[in-house]
């Protein structure tokens, strides 16, 4: 349709001379015309004839002009089909009725050709505008669909699926400003993060992708949660405009299920619930500003270490849950959440929570994204070491020759840096054995922690045997570490090939007193001299483990087949 062929016009008038005249005028404008003598015929012809413009008389038998207009306008959908009323009545009330019924304009009889042309021209301009708007809507809709699938793949696709992780995000609109990330570290810890970007919708969700990338890159390389949060903070500080920030809760579940590390910056309380009594044993309150605000964050301030036992539950949620409103404008609130927890003693809180939330909110539309996560701290929530995988892993290995490496970290350096990811990454770069990362990481971490805690800091592991001592142990550890500027840990490793075997010989030496290893028995029952069950684990993962020197040098040999 263009100016020389403006399309089809529907003329609705019960009086024949009116139709003849208007038909003639419209034909001269290039219109093809169809005619109806009453409102019902108009509706029928609209449906069958698909006119581009309608001229509608008001007073007609069967169905009058107002009613016909109402019905037709209800059926035009996204198309703009202008309806121009034909009226001899010029009183304001009548004209008001025309517009209220959905008419776009009116024309007074007798028809003035010039006025007719002008009004048609104006309607065509509106039609063009409407088409542009519809086009933009389609484009936006298409783009949103693409963006949504990218998001789903990039973020949700990389999370852990496990029956003991019950989680849900209910976005308020297509794009969620809330996000959820989960990953296992190489040392078999579970990292679980939920976050809430300011606002909601697409602009809020954009930050999710860089956060996800930083999180997954760093957790897979074994970085500490403090470093990961710092990394995310740096990224967001550079990325987000002023006024936008990212509230975050992070949980790191230790594979021994003795304690969890929790971090809360700008989110509601993170709840830890006793597995038997169902009491809330700890509320992890927000202890810092959300991320993306300050150039540096004090991760030590934000983090807490909480003792847990197997079967305890951890609940994480965003404020969209507690601030959800019902029709009386009341908030769901923490009290109701506590009530749900209390009444689901011994079973999962997850399903009951959503049932109660839906019941509370009723028909009210959701204003903010709602996130709720229930983690049950059992063995099965963590990855198991699969020794079978090690044996059958196919590696593209040739004899890559020998290399060795020595890294020495002084006390002051140890205060700031966890050397383990650095060392492991170096080995991975040189040897390209990604499948061995978890085992290698676990071994080196365990040896390093022993060297640092017992060798350099002089802590005794017996302290960790009960919950009070446990807390005391870590308090002491933090204090000693913060003041550390003497001592050292030296890593020296040699990598070599022997026929079809590749071997890493790693020595971890600390500046401490060592211990009498000749007379110390490694047994399942009594392993108090060496930190917990950790040494037995390494023994399992290495080819061999022994001690040298005063007992301050641990030597681990790690082998894998290159065929």
């Amino acid at each position, binding site marked *: 349709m263009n100016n020389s062929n403006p399309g089809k016009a529907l003329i609705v008038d*019960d*009086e*024949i*001379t*009116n139709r*003849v*005249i208007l*038909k*003639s*005028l419209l*034909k*001269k404008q290039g219109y093809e015309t169809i005619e109806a003598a009453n409102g019902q015929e108009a509706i029928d012809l609209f449906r069958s004839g698909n006119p581009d413009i309608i001229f509608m008389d008001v*007073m007609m*038998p069967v169905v009058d002009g107002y009613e016909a207009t109402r019905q037709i306008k209800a059926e035009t959908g996204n198309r703009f089909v202008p309806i121009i009323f034909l009226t*001899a009545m010029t009183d304001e009330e009548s004209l008001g009725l025309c517009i209220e019924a959905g008419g776009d304009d009116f024309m007074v*009889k*007798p*028809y003035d*050709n010039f006025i007719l042309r002008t009004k048609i021209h104006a309607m065509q301009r509106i039609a063009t505008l409407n088409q542009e708007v519809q086009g933009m809507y389609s484009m936006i809709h298409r783009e949103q669909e693409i963006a949504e699938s990218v998001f789903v793949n990039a973020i949700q696709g990389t999370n852990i699926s496990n029956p003991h992780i019950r989680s849900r995000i209910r976005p308020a609109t297509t794009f969620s400003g809330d996000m959820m990330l989960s990953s296992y570290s190489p040392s078999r810890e579970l990292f679980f993060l939920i976050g809430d970007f300011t606002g909601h919708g697409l602009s809020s969700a954009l930050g999710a992708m860089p956060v996800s990338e930083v999180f997954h890159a760093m957790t897979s390389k074994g970085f500490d949660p403090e470093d990961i949060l710092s990394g995310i903070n740096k990224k967001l500080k550079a990325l987000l405009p002023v006024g936008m920030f990212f509230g975050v809760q992070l949980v790191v579940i230790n594979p021994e299920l003795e304690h969890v590390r929790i971090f809360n910056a700008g989110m509601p309380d993170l709840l830890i619930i006793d597995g038997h009594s169902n009491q809330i044993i700890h509320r992890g309150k927000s202890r810092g500003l959300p991320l993306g605000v300050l150039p540096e964050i004090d991760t030590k301030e934000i983090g807490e270490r909480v003792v847990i036992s197997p079967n305890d539950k951890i609940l994480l949620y965003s404020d969209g849950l507690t601030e959800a409103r019902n029709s009386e404008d009341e908030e769901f609130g923490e009290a109701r959440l506590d009530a749900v927890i209390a009444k689901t003693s011994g079973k999962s809180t997850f399903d009951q929570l959503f049932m109660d939330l839906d019941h509370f909110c009723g028909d009210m539309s959701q204003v903010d994204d709602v996130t709720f996560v229930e983690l049950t701290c059992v063995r099965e929530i963590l990855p198991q070491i699969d020794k079978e995988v090690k044996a059958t892993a196919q590696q593209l290995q040739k004899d890559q020759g020998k290399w060795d490496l020595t890294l020495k970290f002084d006390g002051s350096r140890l205060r700031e840096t966890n050397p383990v990811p650095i060392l492991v990454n170096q080995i991975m770069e040189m040897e390209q054995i990604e499948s061995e990362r978890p085992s290698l990481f676990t071994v080196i971490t365990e040896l390093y922690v022993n060297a640092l805690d017992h060798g350099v800091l002089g802590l005794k592991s017996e302290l960790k045997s009960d919950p009070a001592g446990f807390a005391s142990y870590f308090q002491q550890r933090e204090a000693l570490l913060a003041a550390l500027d003497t001592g050292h840990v030296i890593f020296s490793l040699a990598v070599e090939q022997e026929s079809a075997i590749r071997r890493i010989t790693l020595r971890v030496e600390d500046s401490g007193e060592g211990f009498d290893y000749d007379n110390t028995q490694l047994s399942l029952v009594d392993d108090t001299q060496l930190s917990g069950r950790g040494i037995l684990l390494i023994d399992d993962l290495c080819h061999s483990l022994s001690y040298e020197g005063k007992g301050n040098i641990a030597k681990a040999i790690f082998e894998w087949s290159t065929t």
Partner: protein
Amino acid sequence: MTEQSSETLDHSTLNQLKTDMGDDFGELIPVFIQSGQEILTALEHAFNEGDVAVFLRQAHSLKSSSANLGGTLLSRQAAALELDAKSGILPKSDDFMHGLRAEFARIETELLKLAA
């Protein structure tokens, strides 16, 4: 009572129509004549039946179509009937039909002269 214009047809209206409609103008006259006759018949019938609704609609149509063709007097006559009918009032006798038919005949004659 002010003297109404006795001119049967308002030629300025007709001339404007001729200009606007061009060739199509010729079609308009027979349409008007036939339509007008049908309306007058229907009007009389409605009067005889005492049907106010139909009477009203026919009077309205007559007013409209005669105004289109410049038949100002006929249009005013029809308007008066329409106004009364809106209040539910029909004429007392069928005398009104004579006036309408007479005026219509005059219009018809002049239009046919134009068309020729």
